[in-house]
């Protein structure tokens, strides 16, 4: 018995031949309700296709539909008699495994589904390879009500996807706690802008040779009412996932420009990090322009830091946006160089003023020949392309000496100062000026 023979005709999804969403959910309710003949242990699998959207986008909806049809056929091949399979969303499926269905049987079915759907499809002359991720929840152990059980299977599915796709995961209570914490953080994050919980801290960057303070990088901090000061690593990924990075990024830009406009030294540059999502939008240049106008900061004093990963999203838009920004007088620097998908051709083709060498290379510069060689090569490359090179994460005088010797033009790190709150920026400007021994022996800077 398969899905189609067990269900009334109208309940079948015409594309895949599987149950429609409502029919599957009704069967799930019955299976969980003793009065309706249910209540026996059973397993629920949530299945999601990996890369389906890519196929739809690149080969068209007709091929996407043909793919769903074939996936339906493979799911029907994989399930046992008595199991009910349904399509509950665009490329989301659920399988209700009838009794007996313990963890072992559920995992065996999940493995069969992953294997079958992972095999090539031949569609309209294209060999298409997608994959499937599966989450498993068991009734009544994981949840004894239908909707919560489906949520358990979904949470396990998200976990499978988060851990690399093309695999299966069984629900664990820790997943629910994590999802709850995430939901809480998301709602806190939504409120944070309005409640004024974000603040910027500033870390100086210094010109090598002269020791002159060149400017500050603005770093986002979240002063959470219960958790204290939260580092960006803990909330920026969630902000990026939820799209909240856009209003947050706008706040950072506006605040950094306003605060920098008030600094006593009008030659200092403020560097602001720009997220991939901001860079992918054509309005970034207009937004920067109006922010500069509103805050009175000279364009030359603003530097926008982009990462290579952010450029990868849409190189064409990013290039156009950065060209517009540079036309305004704003400078562009490439952050974390050497970590992501580093490409030397990008240094040549992308409109840039500066490359920031990732701290991982700087840390070892005084002790490992390889790190020194990489820093030297990037500095030389930057120099011949007319770019400044800033070493990030400088912590010791010996690292500083090596960086100067290897041709870097600027440096940033705890050796000069930790990031400080806005209120302490003036004191830091004065301290760095006082630390400079006179005008300094102005070494020639490769530039």
């Amino acid at each position: 018995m398969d899905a189609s023979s067990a269900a009334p005709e109208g309940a079948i999804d015409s594309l895949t031949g599987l149950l429609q969403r409502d029919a599957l959910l009704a069967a799930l309710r019955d299976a969980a309700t003793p009065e309706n003949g249910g209540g026996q242990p059973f397993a629920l699998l949530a299945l999601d296709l990996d890369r389906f959207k890519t196929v739809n986008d690149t080969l068209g909806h007709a091929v996407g539909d043909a793919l769903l049809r074939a996936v339906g056929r493979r799911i029907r091949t994989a399930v046992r008699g008595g199991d009910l399979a349904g399509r509950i969303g665009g490329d989301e499926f659920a399988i209700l495994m009838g009794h007996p269905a313990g963890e072992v049987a559920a995992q065996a079915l999940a493995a069969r589904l992953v294997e079958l759907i992972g095999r090539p499809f031949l569609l309209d002359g294209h060999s298409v390879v997608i994959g499937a991720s599966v989450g498993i929840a068991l009734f009544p152990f994981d949840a004894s009500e239908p909707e919560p059980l489906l949520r358990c299977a979904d949470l396990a599915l998200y976990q499978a996807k988060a851990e690399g796709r093309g695999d299966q995961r069984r629900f664990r209570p820790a997943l629910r706690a994590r999802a709850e914490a995430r939901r809480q953080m998301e709602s806190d994050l939504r409120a944070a802008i309005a409640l004024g919980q974000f603040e910027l801290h500033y870390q100086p960057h210094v010109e090598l040779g002269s020791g002159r303070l060149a400017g500050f990088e603005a770093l986002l901090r979240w002063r959470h009412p219960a958790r204290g000061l939260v580092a960006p690593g803990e909330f920026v990924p969630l902000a990026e996932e939820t799209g909240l990075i856009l209003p947050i990024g706008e706040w950072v830009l506006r605040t950094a420009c306003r605060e920098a406009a008030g600094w006593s030294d009008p030659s200092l540059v403020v560097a602001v990090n720009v997220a991939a999502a901001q860079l992918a939008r054509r309005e970034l240049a207009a937004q920067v322009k109006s922010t500069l106008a509103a805050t009175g900061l000279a364009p030359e004093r603003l530097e926008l830091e982009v990462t290579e990963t952010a450029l990868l999203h849409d190189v064409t838009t990013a290039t156009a946006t950065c060209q517009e920004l540079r036309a305004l007088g704003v400078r562009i620097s490439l952050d974390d160089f050497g970590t992501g998908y580093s490409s030397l051709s990008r240094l040549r083709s992308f409109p840039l003023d500066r490359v920031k060498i990732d701290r991982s290379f700087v840390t070892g510069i005084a002790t490992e020949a390889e790190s020194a060689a990489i820093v030297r090569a990037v500095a030389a490359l930057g120099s011949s392309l007319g770019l400044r090179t800033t070493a990030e994460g400088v912590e010791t005088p010996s690292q500083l000496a090596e960086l100067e010797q290897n041709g870097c033009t600027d440096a940033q790190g705890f050796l000069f100062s930790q990031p400080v709150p806005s209120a302490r920026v003036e004191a830091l400007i004065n301290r760095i000026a006082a630390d400079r021994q006179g005008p300094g022996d102005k070494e020639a800077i490769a530039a």
Partner: protein
Amino acid sequence: MSGMQPALRRVIYVSHTVTDPDEPIGPVLASILTAARRNNPRIGVTGALLYTARRFAQVLEGPPEAVEAIFETIQCDLRHDHVTVLEVSAPTVRAFADWSMAFVADAPVRAETLGEAGGAAELLAMLQAAIRNTEAATA
């Protein structure tokens, strides 16, 4: 002109058998070939099957819809796994026009080279040569 002829599709894939190594493969091959030779003439599909060192390699050619339908049926077969498509093409002539499903066993091709670039062309040439030899021997 090729434009006057009906469109042809060819797909070449390799896979691993998942049958028990201690069980004879003969009955499995017999059932695959019997089904292919029964069904293929009706839908205009021709091709060749190779079995060597626990690997399958198969060439299917014919009307695009028929080839895609048969390929999908084969993908749902749990007797093999690790399926890799080596080639999807639109040839002007069939390589195995006279064969609903030719069979070659233990051919002189290293299993490892099958999945490499150029493996499809090598495989096709080898299968055609093997079948010509069989024809010559039985002529």
